[in-house]
């Protein structure tokens, strides 16, 4: 998504990602609550399962997209200075991209190691 990110696209992405994340969160919540003791081994088994691993990767990518649209909205609403706007948006996108990459790297290592 570009800095310009068209209105409709951004709005649509935010809703779709929100829906996916809600489903994922409910599923993980159910998983945790329905398991008596969540040990590291069990946790590892969950997240190294290919489907769960992929879904988690997707979750964090969608989280980044969702957060980007939300943060961009806040910046567009409250920040009027163009330079400050540009710097803030650059920092936010850098942070979101780096943290997403790191999460995906972790998930990938998890799936390879087991």
């Amino acid at each position: 998504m570009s800095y310009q990110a068209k209105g409709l696209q951004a709005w649509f992405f935010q809703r779709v990602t929100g829906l996916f994340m809600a489903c994922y969160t409910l599923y993980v919540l159910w998983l945790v609550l329905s398991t008596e003791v969540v040990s590291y081994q069990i946790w590892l088994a969950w997240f190294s399962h290919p489907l769960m691993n992929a879904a988690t990767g997707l979750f964090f990518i969608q989280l980044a997209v969702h957060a980007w649209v939300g943060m961009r909205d806040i910046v567009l609403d409250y920040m009027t200075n163009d330079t400050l706007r540009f710097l803030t948006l650059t920092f936010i996108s850098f942070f979101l991209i780096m943290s997403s990459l790191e999460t995906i790297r972790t998930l990938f290592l998890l799936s390879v190691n087991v």
Partner: protein
Amino acid sequence: MRFKIYRFNPETDTAPYTKEYELSDIEPGTMLRDALLRIKNEQDESLSFRHSCGEGVCGSDGMNINGKNGLACVTAVETLKQPIIINPLPGMPVIRDLVIDMTQFYTQYRVAKPWLIVNDPVPEIEFTQTPEQRDKLDGLYECILCGCCSTSCPSFWWNPDKFMGPAALLQSWRFLSDSRDQATDERLEDLEGPYKLFRCHSIMNCVDVCPKQLNPTKAIGEIKKLMLKKML
């Protein structure tokens, strides 16, 4: 009955201030506009505010009454908590006392192109519509452009030059849903981008304050739905 009214005369005052007034012998059913007129006639003729029809049709006397935007002429004073605090509609430049400069509001209204755009030859006698097609305009055409909604919208406060505001967007949807209009694609194209339409975050202050009980948030949602339909 006590009133606290925002006062500012740019010719004599350096800063706005609040002035207190007291009225007695208020008759039952007195509207705020009548009370303000009494204050103006009996106590302080320098008090300025817009008003005209006195029955919620012209939309001239929009003001902030006890923290909520509304029309003075259809607000009964006995329903209000005392002291009644009256301010001009928020977020707009004040010309004097309760009179605000509505230029920004009207500029955004113009952006909505509030007229029928017809490319086909205009029919000789009249445009015809079925009752069902006409029904779609109910809840949209009644807007009196008082400005209560747009001036209560935080998104409009932050970006009044870029975000169209609920009143103008209600009109956008009024013409998008008109069976006689032929510029749907152009109108939707006009609304694209992060500002004009998509600064709306469904805060719904507009619905809360509208003196005609209209629902701009719903209209904005319908525009988004139509855009999405066209995109997919």
